[in-house]
């Protein structure tokens, strides 16, 4: 049966029944059920992805809920001009870039190091137990992570402050201190995502053939030289791809996380583009202005992604698209 159908497929592609020779209407009719299946998905993308794209035109309006989208006045680039001249702009840019940089320096290497360490374990039971434990926080919501952070860092009876007070005699208000905001955010990311981040590296390591290690042993390479010359190079392309991906969404700091840890006392360092859009747009109702801010960020984002893709192809890596 399968042989027969393979033959018939060959006939189809070369013979008179070639779909290229059907007229477009005939093709559409032939695939009618496929289009029926496709329809709900298309409706979704039109409604919730493309309508909002069209809605960004609000950024060039002075949108008023009473007048509605069609009747509101057009103001050109006024909101953008206002935003770029506003000291908020540099504050947001600075906060976003510093957090992204910290993330790159402190979080990015963590899963690589832990994956290398896990890879050196020979007791499979121990290895699996550790993996099972460190993957857990990845599946928790940011609300849970933020709640646990509150419980541990609060000045009223938190465990961390009990230790701090024991050694220094005073408490540190981590949760509302601008100085501690960034370390706290990066610490949360490390705690939540390092374990899970090892998955992709461990998968890359699993594909290294044992012969390579045996060959290295034959050549007299010790443990650390094997790690350096066999294990680490096996991770290189994964590291490069993940770095490029990271550059592509450099401005996307975890929105939910930052939103949850932001309060009136640490706003000066906590505000990033996305949370600013929420506070100004949803809480204060400046719809057009916040749409303009969001649009600015989205456009820089798209440039970064295509730039990262270009870079990837330059480096002979598979591109992002």
């Amino acid at each position, binding site marked *: 049966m*399968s042989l027969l*159908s*393979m033959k*018939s497929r060959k006939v189809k592609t070369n013979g008179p029944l070639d779909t290229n020779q059907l007229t477009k209407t005939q093709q559409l009719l032939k*695939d009618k*059920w*496929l*289009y029926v*299946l496709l329809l*709900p*998905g298309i409706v*979704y*993308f039109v409604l*919730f*992805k*493309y309508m*909002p794209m069209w*809605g*960004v035109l*609000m950024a060039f309006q002075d949108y008023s809920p009473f007048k509605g989208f069609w009747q509101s006045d057009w103001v050109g680039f006024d909101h953008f001009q206002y935003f770029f001249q506003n000291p908020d702009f540099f504050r947001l840019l600075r906060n976003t870039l510093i957090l992204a940089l910290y993330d790159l320096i402190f979080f990015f290497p963590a899963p690589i190091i*832990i994956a290398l*360490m896990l890879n*050196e*374990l020979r007791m499979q039971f121990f290895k699996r137990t550790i993996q099972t*434990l*460190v993957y*857990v926080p990845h*599946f*928790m*919501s*940011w*609300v*849970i992570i*933020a709640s646990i952070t*509150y*419980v541990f860092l609060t000045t009223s*009876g*938190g465990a961390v402050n*009990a*230790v701090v007070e024991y050694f220094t005699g005073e408490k540190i208000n981590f949760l509302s201190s601008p100085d501690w905001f960034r370390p706290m955010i990066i610490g949360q990311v490390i*705690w939540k995502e390092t*374990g899970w981040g090892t998955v*992709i590296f461990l*998968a890359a390591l699993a594909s290294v053939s*044992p012969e390579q290690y045996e060959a290295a*042993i034959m050549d007299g390479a*010790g*443990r650390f030289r094997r790690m350096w010359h066999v294990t680490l190079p096996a991770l290189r392309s994964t590291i490069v791809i993940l770095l490029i991906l990271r550059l592509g969404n450099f401005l996307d700091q975890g929105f*939910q996380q930052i939103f949850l840890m932001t*309060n*009136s006392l640490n706003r000066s360092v906590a505000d990033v583009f*996305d949370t600013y859009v*929420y506070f100004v*747009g949803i809480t204060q109702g400046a719809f057009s202005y*916040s*749409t303009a801010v969001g*649009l600015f960020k*989205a456009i820089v984002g*798209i440039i970064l992604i295509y730039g990262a893709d270009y870079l990837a192809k330059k480096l002979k890596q*598979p591109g992002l698209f």
Partner: protein
Amino acid sequence: MHKMHNTPLGRVFDVFNHIFLALLGLATFIPFVYVIAGSFATESEIAARPFFLIPETITTAAYDYIFSTTTFIRSIGVSVLVTVLGTLVSLLLTMTMAYPLSRKKLLGRNLILNLVVFTMVFNGGMIPTYMVVKSLGLLDSLWALILPVAINPFYLIIVKSFFQNLPSELEESAKIDGCSDMGVFWRIVIPLSKPVIATFTLFYAVFYWNDFFNALLYISDSAKWPVQLLLQQLMMVANMDFGEMDTMLADPPEESLKMAVVVVATVPILIFYPFLQKHFAKGILLGSVKG
């Protein structure tokens, strides 16, 4: 795993490695244990002892309290409903859209695929999306937690690639036997896709269960809050002044109470954790294969 001639330095490294990783495992795990312990402890003990793993006096007062409030029970109901319904809707939409897109000869396929990929690099943003949801009359409806996020384009592309790799002989022979495309999809493709369906059921379910932000945006009626949003409000109200709040609990929530809510919001994830671990690792590796 491979034969090793262990040098003294290597042995020192091994010892250090084991200790470090064991500590790391504990560091990820102990905060949860503390929260569970705290949820069963008395208020006075939490105030007196900054850290413990087993409470001196075990009490279920916090649980008794939260399970006696309609607010809390309702929010669990909302979360369960949104998770179950949302996962069903998402799976259905993702599967039905991915299948036609896996057929290379479909007219308009590339255009649609490109439009889908474009939504992964550019989107209208929070405010215009909010406006669309509002104009559809979905504000304060639980559908607002599902419909605007029903299809994850990444998952769609992965499922599409999976369908593309199914042996086409099966579909073709079914067609020869007189099956329509619709019949092929439901009777051949879906039964063959059980592993993928299992993986993405979990992906979507975890997303819906954990989501609080869409509720914050779209649901102002606190009777319709999912448990994650309720927890966020409980935590933020007690610790910070965080804009306008309407708490529905008469007295400000106590510590053990908050921890009990954290535990209840975490439990479903922990119950399904063995499946999650297995399927998510599979999913992440599926995702790294380009389609």
